[in-house]
């Protein structure tokens, strides 16, 4: 039989196999998860969780689907956190510093405590990306925040009430739409297709007998 550890789910003790993740351990204990479980693999941010190891002062945070249980772990899930998401029209935005000032002025109230960075479940430099946003440096903010899963843990720790993931989301969209270079070859191809450049070729393909298509497929040239 596998080794077990004692964990405390919302204060109640359960003995669970030590190889399980927190999410798996909750299920082992009998929970049928509805909230706090999405992708089960570190991409969606549904499973933000806080815990403390008995006797330890530090309060830790993690993604339940990505973290193994430990003995004497006191666990509370954080399946929802009230982030502020401002509504804007991406077509009408001007990609300058003023946007942040208008939509998320609270970022200028950052006191530099770095609690966000320390708590990030993805190990991102959250305070740093907020600093970039303050300066209107959206490209860097986008770069630094790219791996964010929007679990909201950073915001739960922020004394200034900043919704970091939403700030970063705005920066990334501005960067993707306005600041990153446009792709001429893409726009050209869309125009060619609109003009029907490939229509005949495609139609001819669909009309070919199966044997001929197989022949074409099996002998097609593959780019190195």
């Amino acid at each position: 039989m596998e080794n077990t550890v004692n964990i405390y789910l919302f204060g109640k003790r359960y003995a669970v196999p030590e190889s399980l993740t927190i999410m798996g351990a909750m299920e082992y204990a009998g929970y049928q998860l509805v909230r706090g479980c999405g992708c089960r693999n570190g991409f969606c941010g549904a499973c933000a969780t806080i815990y403390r190891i008995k006797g330890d002062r530090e309060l830790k945070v993690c993604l339940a689907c990505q973290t193994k249980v430990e003995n004497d772990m006191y666990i509370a899930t954080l399946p929802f956190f009230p982030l502020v998401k401002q509504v804007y029209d991406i077509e009408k935005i001007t990609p300058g510093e003023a946007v942040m000032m208008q939509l998320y002025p609270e970022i200028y109230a950052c006191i530099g405590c770095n609690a966000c960075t320390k708590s990030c479940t993805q190990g991102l430099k959250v305070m740093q990306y907020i600093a970039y946003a303050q300066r209107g440096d959206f490209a860097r903010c986008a770069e630094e925040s790219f791996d964010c899963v929007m679990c909201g843990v950073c915001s739960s720790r922020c004394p200034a009430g900043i919704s970091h993931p939403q700030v970063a989301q705005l920066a990334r969209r501005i960067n993707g739409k306005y600041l990153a270079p446009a792709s001429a070859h893409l726009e050209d191809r869309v125009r060619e297709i609109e003009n029907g450049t490939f229509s005949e070729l495609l139609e001819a393909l669909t009309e070919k007998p199966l044997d001929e298509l197989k022949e074409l497929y099996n002998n097609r040239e593959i780019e190195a």
Partner: protein
Amino acid sequence: MAQFDMLESVKKVEAAREANLLFEPKRMTAEEKDALLVAYHPDYKKEEFEALKIGANRGDPVPHELAAVLEGRPRITPADVDLTRIDHDCDVLIIGGGGAGISAALEAEQNGERVLVVTKLRVGDANTMMAEGGIQAADKPNDSPAIHYLDAFGGGHFAAKPELLVKLVSEAPDAILWLNKLGVEFDKAPDGTMITTHGGGTSRKRMHAARDYTGAEIMRTLRDEALNRNIAIVDFTAAVELLTDTEGKCAGAVLMNMETGELTVARAKTVILATGGAGRMHYQGFPTSNHYGATADGLALGYRVGAKLLYADTLQYHPTGAAYPEQIFGALVTEKVRSLGAKLVNAEGEVFMHPLETRDVAAAAIIRECSDRQKGVKTASGCGVWLDTPMIEMLGGEGTILARIPAMHRMFEKYGIDIRKEPILVYPTLHYQNGGLDITPDGMTAVENLYAAGEVVGGIHGRNRLMGNSLLDVIVFGRSAGKHASEKAKSVTKAESLSLCRLEEWEKERTAAGIENETPSPKLLPVYSHGNPLFQKKYF
């Protein structure tokens, strides 16, 4: 099964790495591939399938687990709901908040119709969020929609519906442009040229990516846009039955609050099913890469009101699911790892195949290594073969892994494995539902006013799908379903009275066919107890 010890085997892999890096394994011939698939691919295991006894596809084979929900016991009876109490009234009802559902919502809203999106978990908790590798589009000068078509048609074993595939490849560049204009950050060179790579089965480098968070980057952008446009999205709300009008045209759905169990009625002029895939059905006992809600609900809902299925017997087993450590068993190791140069190596340190064969062929080849050839590496839950990730940086230079596949690095790093220095163990994982609801190019199913888009659809890819064509189909067909369903809604008059008559007929058909299966349908969520021997679980 496998007999090789991990630590011993890894030494062989290291010793052979230099030579393996230079070694160019040959691609299999068409005949070799066919023989391999028949012998080793899970789709060819006849005993894992059964013929449907009722419905539009009676007689067709589907996996046992799917038959159980397709023919299972509907979660509600007509007595459970008062259909005269309309709780939600809208023009276009969209079921599912993944990439297809939200793309559809944006287009339907744009077209001036009132949209309601309901989704089982939170919006964006979906397979779309998890896609790592990329999205295909023929937008480079050496490429064309015709070449894309041939790659996809051949890769899908010449079984795709041509009119759907033509649409997919023709609208691909526009889909990328649309996403880019919404602010999706694709990997680009400083001059704006898209950085594109190969995927299994592509003959041109047309895989666009946003590092290895491609799906997440697309999904979060779409979600943000839907919120900006104030589209009504109701989380934790599942469709449990589709409603029709008195003529049998689709006209809404019965919804269930996943937390309280409350049932509500939604009336709509047109309905779009965008419920995604089926990995959590765990066909043949395989682990899965899919999100928690991937339980084939859309197939069950659609099938009961008369929609037809196409290729529901073909699943995609991704060749490289994580086989170790146990905590991430089945989680996806993106194909991009192979695109970037990592090769598949068996327990003896031999490169046993070309790394960029199509997925079904690669999965079958790995199963062969681990079974008949006895060259797998032993793990807690079975066995696996090596994916030699350190090759990536030998080829692309130091830093390539962090720059191009940071999510992969992070996933293994959490368990003390540095993929820059150590290879990883992989085994096929249930990844994608190739088959699904049969649609017209406009996205309509066999049921009038019922549309479908995304992974719930079958026929776009044939019997196997190439990497990067699914995110693409989600955008192309999601948008298209949104446009057509909203256009159609303009000419539909709201149903005077809603009906569950199909449900009554269904029960009669079940009885007539002697079906005693009581599996609740749709499944909604899987139940896991991780081997807890004491726990008898049930829904409450």
